[in-house]
């Protein structure tokens, strides 16, 4: 069922998503080859997070289609979720459970085995090994984000979806995150991330996609070289979402 030879790791075709009268994604097309780190940049409200939520199967597009390694999201959600790991805005952790209990719980949902070893391994990887037996509510936002990252990595997904992963992280943790992303790239897996630290995003990415008004306005396969044109296209102050035309 998993199409290992799929041409694109992520493919979105004519995605439209509205929230009430507000059009967030307006016929977005995107194709991301496997083994690349892609950074999505754009002002607030351009639809970056919405696109990631659609790809993570948390929300449905109003129209259009999307697939992950050739598997249609609408047809096989559980399989797609098994192939993706997502760290979105909220850490999505149970604050009255310890870090270990949270990771054990999610490992059970992901039907993982050797859970104790996995937890130790990924806790070391994201730097939370000293806090494994602390309740999540006692952790800072940055630590919670690291736990969320460990949860997203535990099942070793082929595609990592990261929504502003650096928010709340200190410089050391951002460095760790960069190493992790590098490791992902070198193992042939795919990362799609949004960021507001555009300069940094362009440094680590193989591909940059600029969203404005819910569509892709620029795509670059050498973001470090195309920095000037990407930054010119990306304008945080630009009005991005639009009210849909009201039909009579």
């Amino acid at each position, binding site marked *: 069922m998993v199409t290992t030879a799929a041409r694109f790791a992520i493919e979105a075709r004519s995605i439209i998503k509205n929230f009430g009268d507000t059009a967030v994604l307006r016929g977005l097309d995107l194709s991301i080859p496997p083994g690349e780190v892609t950074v999505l940049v754009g002002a607030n409200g351009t639809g970056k997070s919405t696109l990631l939520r659609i790809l*993570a*199967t*948390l*929300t*449905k597009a109003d129209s259009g289609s999307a697939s992950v390694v050739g598997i249609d999201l609408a047809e096989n*959600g*559980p*399989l*797609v*979720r*098994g192939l993706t790991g*997502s760290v*979105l805005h*909220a*850490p*999505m*952790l*149970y*604050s*009255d*459970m310890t870090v270990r*209990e949270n990771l054990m*719980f*999610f490992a*059970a*949902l*992901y*039907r993982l085995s050797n859970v104790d070893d996995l937890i130790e391994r990924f806790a070391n990887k994201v730097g939370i090994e000293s806090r494994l037996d602390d309740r999540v509510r006692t952790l800072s936002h940055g630590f919670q984000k690291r736990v969320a990252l460990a*949860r997203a990595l535990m*099942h070793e997904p082929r595609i990592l979806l990261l929504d502003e992963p650096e928010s709340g992280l200190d410089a050391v943790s951002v460095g760790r995150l960069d190493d992790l992303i590098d490791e992902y790239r070198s193992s042939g897996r795919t990362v799609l991330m949004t960021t507001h630290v555009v300069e940094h995003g362009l440094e680590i990415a193989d591909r940059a996609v600029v969203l404005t008004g819910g569509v892709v306005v620029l795509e670059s396969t050498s973001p470090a070289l195309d920095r000037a044109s990407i930054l010119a296209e990306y304008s945080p102050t630009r009005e991005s979402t639009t009210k849909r035309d009201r039909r009579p």
Partner: protein
Amino acid sequence: MRDSLAVVWSIGRKDLLLEVRNKEIIVAIAGFALLVLVIFTFAVDLNQANARLVGPGVLWAAVAFAGIVGLNRAFALEVEGNTLEGLMLAPISRDLIYLGKALGIFLFLAVALMVVLPVFAVLFNLIVFRWEMLAISFLTIIGFSAVGTLFAAMSVRVRAREVMLPLLFLPVVTPLIMTAVESTAHLVNGRSWSDMSQWLQLAVAFDVVFLVVSAFIFQHILED
């Protein structure tokens, strides 16, 4: 199949673990139900005949209304921490999330009922500790959990969820409450098993239909 059951159990066990730490839901359900029972003991002259007449109705009305308090809280906790989305990210069919949450609510109601029933037996001076009562309670709280989980998920993102949930939940569970009241009335009046079996069959049918239908609908209401 075994994997699916393990996932459902993990979600139910997680809810129970959080409840052991927070003590929010079971205390609210049991406390509210006990309060209703106590109020009724003052409101009604509880001689043996009256107790048999009104007792079953008071018991299940108290449990139904108290259950709403717990239902509201059970889903509000998942939404406040965005953890419902954490569940939705797991590579599992979303009906398993429904079944897991329903199991959690079932466990809360079961524990609350373990507290409420002895108090009911003492206050109303009725003998309810019979295995038939176990069957009645079991079937009734399965139905409550099946319907309640669905409507709690539907109303949790609504601003007026405290109002919305009872408005959705109570009309639908009314047949089940009637079933529980009738079969409990048969029990406390010393009638035979065959007298109450038709009511229990109705409860079984209710539970099966609502578990299946609710699991199906739940998948759709989770997504925008």
